[in-house]
């Protein structure tokens, strides 16, 4: 129907208008592409209700509403074809919307025509706006960044994005999109996760046109062009690089100093010397408790050790400190939380692990725990879409983190052997250094698979924790030698894996963000000297060279002498036959 109406309209419209709905053939060709590659998420009828929809967040776009996030056109307007093409080609990073580099330009154009046919808005010339002009970025001087910071404060970006941009503003936990789904504020320090692109031009566009359908407003009316350019420079300066630079190894550096967890300053100074590695985290979806949209997508880690002890420090960003609920690695969870409804219990009733219901939170686990409950209704939070109606998200589950090590190193001859990355297996157990951030102390568990996780007390692991401006920091310490678990010898590669639980996202038990196995390497305590081997190599080569020169010259001289004696007239400089 919509396509028919569109076809009629096409004829009726004045030529040169922006409305371009393509031809019948183009839309038909677009439908073929769409049915194969897009319908499973965006729905075969474009309503955003595909097979994947219940299990992804953000939800696939509902094309029947004509509401689009990433546009060069003013707030509330429809995107241009180029805007749509951009999203289809490169996707929206860290969402389930992938880029489609394999589609040809014509296929993309056709699918754009087809997508537009889902919403009558595209037939309405009033919904089209002129794309904004994006000026060349200003040079990123200190003054420009300072001015940008002032704008950031004045415009209230921090209410959502947080003081230093980690997505932890007081309103962050309350935000929902125009469909009532909770929405995560962008972490401005992790530019690689920006969904609409991470260049300065993209940032300028994002806050100039706003993201339709989300609480992210447009500042086109409130900001002069130049201030916007300064703001871009400030936001850009918050970013921790273009690329996450995910690593695979923590290098533990040696120190003579004692490691004292209670002495924050010395501890910080100690960790200053240790390189920091960032590791990717993904949702645990291989076993019940499937976490299709983990909140935390990366964790940073470092390590130092001295004669007797080893210390690890991990850091990650979390929009709020949930420090009043329960959590532990083996807390029962349903197969998956059906709609992940914040504050609802989730879980299908007919799932495998239905007993969850019997494990309700005790009444003391109140929603307004001291974890910053007074922030929930901070400035502005409830202005947007009346998020407060949904009730503030509960802190039924606390934030938590765990390091995982094999209980013993791989046997000789099979260095590749490790325990199963998911809490180990029956033959190869793992040790978990688990910290429930409600208590801030480390508990140790031995895992022999997800169904068998038991507390252990073989080793004492200490921990200190802190939450600052949207960032958790947890520092662990243990003796290097262990009675029952893995010992950290010098120059040893030890497998390590990470888990992070965000209580706000109702992550608990096996519903967590986790990593594959990575390694920690204990650097030798005495670094081998480097100057000597370098000088030695140079000297050896030089001596060899001089030797060759000497031999060749001597030979030439002798030859010349011989030939002179024989009455020859060859000049010594002429090449002698060898």
């Amino acid at each position, binding site marked *: 129907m919509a396509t028919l109406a569109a076809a009629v309209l096409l004829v009726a419209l004045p030529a040169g208008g922006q409305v371009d709905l393509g031809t019948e053939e183009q839309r038909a060709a677009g439908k073929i592409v769409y049915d194969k590659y897009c319908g499973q998420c965006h729905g075969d009828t474009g309503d955003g209700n595909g097979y994947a929809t219940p299990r992804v967040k953000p939800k696939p776009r509902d094309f029947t509403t004509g509401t689009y996030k990433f546009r060069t056109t003013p707030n509330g307007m429809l995107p241009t074809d180029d805007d749509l093409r951009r999203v289809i080609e490169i996707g929206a990073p860290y969402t389930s919307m992938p880029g489609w580099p394999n589609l040809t330009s014509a296929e993309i154009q056709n699918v754009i025509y087809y997508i537009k046919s889902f919403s009558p808005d595209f037939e309405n010339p009033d919904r089209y706006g002129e794309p904004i002009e994006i000026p060349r970025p200003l040079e990123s001087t200190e003054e420009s960044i300072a001015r940008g910071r002032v704008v950031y404060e004045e415009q209230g970006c921090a209410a959502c994005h947080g003081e230093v941009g980690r997505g932890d503003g007081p309103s962050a936990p309350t935000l929902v999109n125009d469909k009532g789904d909770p929405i995560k504020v962008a972490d401005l320090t992790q530019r690689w996760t920006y969904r609409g692109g991470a260049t300065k031009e993209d940032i300028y566009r994002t806050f100039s046109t706003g993201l339709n359908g989300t609480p992210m407003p447009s500042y086109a009316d409130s900001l002069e062009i130049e201030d916007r350019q300064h703001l871009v420079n400030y936001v850009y300066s918050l970013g921790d690089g273009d690329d996450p630079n995910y690593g695979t190894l923590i290098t533990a550096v040696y120190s003579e100093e004692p490691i004292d967890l209670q002495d924050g300053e010395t501890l910080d100074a100690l960790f200053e010397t240790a390189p920091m590695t960032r590791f990717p985290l993904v949702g645990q979806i291989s076993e019940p408790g499937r976490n299709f949209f983990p909140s935390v997508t990366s964790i940073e880690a470092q390590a130092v050790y001295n004669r007797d002890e080893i210390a690890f420090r991990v850091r990650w960003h979390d929009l709020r400190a949930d420090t009043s609920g329960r959590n532990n690695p083996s807390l029962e969870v349903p197969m998956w939380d059906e709609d992940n409804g914040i504050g609802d219990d989730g879980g299908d009733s007919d799932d495998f692990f239905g007993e969850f219901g019997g494990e309700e939170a005790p009444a003391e686990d109140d929603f307004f725990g001291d974890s910053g409950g007074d922030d929930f209704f901070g400035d502005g939070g409830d202005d947007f879409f009346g998020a407060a109606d949904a009730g503030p998200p509960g802190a039924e589950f606390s934030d938590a983190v765990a390091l995982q090590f094999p209980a013993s190193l791989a046997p000789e001859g099979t*260095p590749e052997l490790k325990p199963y990355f998911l809490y180990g297996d029956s033959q190869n157990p793992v040790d978990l250094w688990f910290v429930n951030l409600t208590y801030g102390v480390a508990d140790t568990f031995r895992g022999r698979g997800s169904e068998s996780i038991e507390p252990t007390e073989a080793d004492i692991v200490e921990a200190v924790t802190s939450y600052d401006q949207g960032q958790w920091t947890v520092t662990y310490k243990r003796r290097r030698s262990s009675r029952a678990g893995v010992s950290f010898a010098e120059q040893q590669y030890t497998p390590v894996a990470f888990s992070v639980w965000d209580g706000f996202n109702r992550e608990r038990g096996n519903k967590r963000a986790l990593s594959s196995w990575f390694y920690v390497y204990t650097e030798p305590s005495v670094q081998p000297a480097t100057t000597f081997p370098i000088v030695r190599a140079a000297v050896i080569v030089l001596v060899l060279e001089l030797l060759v020169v000497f031999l060749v010259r001597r030979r030439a001289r002798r030859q010349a002498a011989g030939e002179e004696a024989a009455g020859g007239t060859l000049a010594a*400089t002429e090449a002698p*036959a060898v």
Partner: protein
Amino acid sequence: MLGLNLPVVIVLAAVGGVLAWRRANTLTWLLYTWVALWAFFKYGFAVPIPQSVATIYLGITGLALVCFASSSRERLSETAQPIVRLILEPRYRLALAGLLVALPALAAYNVYADLNVPLEAPGFGREVHPPPPTEMTVHDETVDMATAENPYLHYNHDDPELYGEHLENGRRIYYENCFWCHGDGMGGDGMFAHGLNPVPSNFNDVGTLPILQSSFVHWRIAKGAPGLPGAGTPWDSMMPAWEKFLTTEEMWDVNLFIYDFNGYEPRALGQH
């Protein structure tokens, strides 16, 4: 193509061409051979070959070149001539001095660079398609791996409508379960793929589905990583054991769907 870094290969070949055209002398050719090989090993492959392997090849080549140069008196003198002239003729004195300084510097730099390679996590090879068991039990049913086939494949010819229904069900299963890792377009590049090691299989690849029997794929789907033998490093792979979540029919349906989506057919039974 072949995992080669084409621009590098082309440049190396071009340099060779120029040398041939300028009728370079034997020494130049020998040097070129060795340096070109070094550059090829270092930059010529999309995925660099291990340093140790390259070192062995370069060592062998170096020896071979020396043997070649000294294989006859004439050749030896022909090769050595430019060197001797460099050393003896006064007009080359500056060049000689430069060389005397440059070579030790190069050697020193090489050692320095070797000492400063960034540490890397140990990597282990894994067998991508290890031999499956001869039989397995899925949902209390024994499956004989040698004879089992996708029970719905034949509908493709016999009953296209029914085939379509199974495909559609497979599509549902795939987009409810698999795309996080294997990707929306099945390129092995789903939104979680960057956090996985080993990486998820790429089903677009001709080296994956078409060379496998549908029973092998059924085994991998049902038993996942935990079902792999040690050679497949089951402890690292995030491939779930789908028998925990899906019925037998659903597993065959998704099996059907991943073949159909990519336009492939399973390898026939008994074909090796």
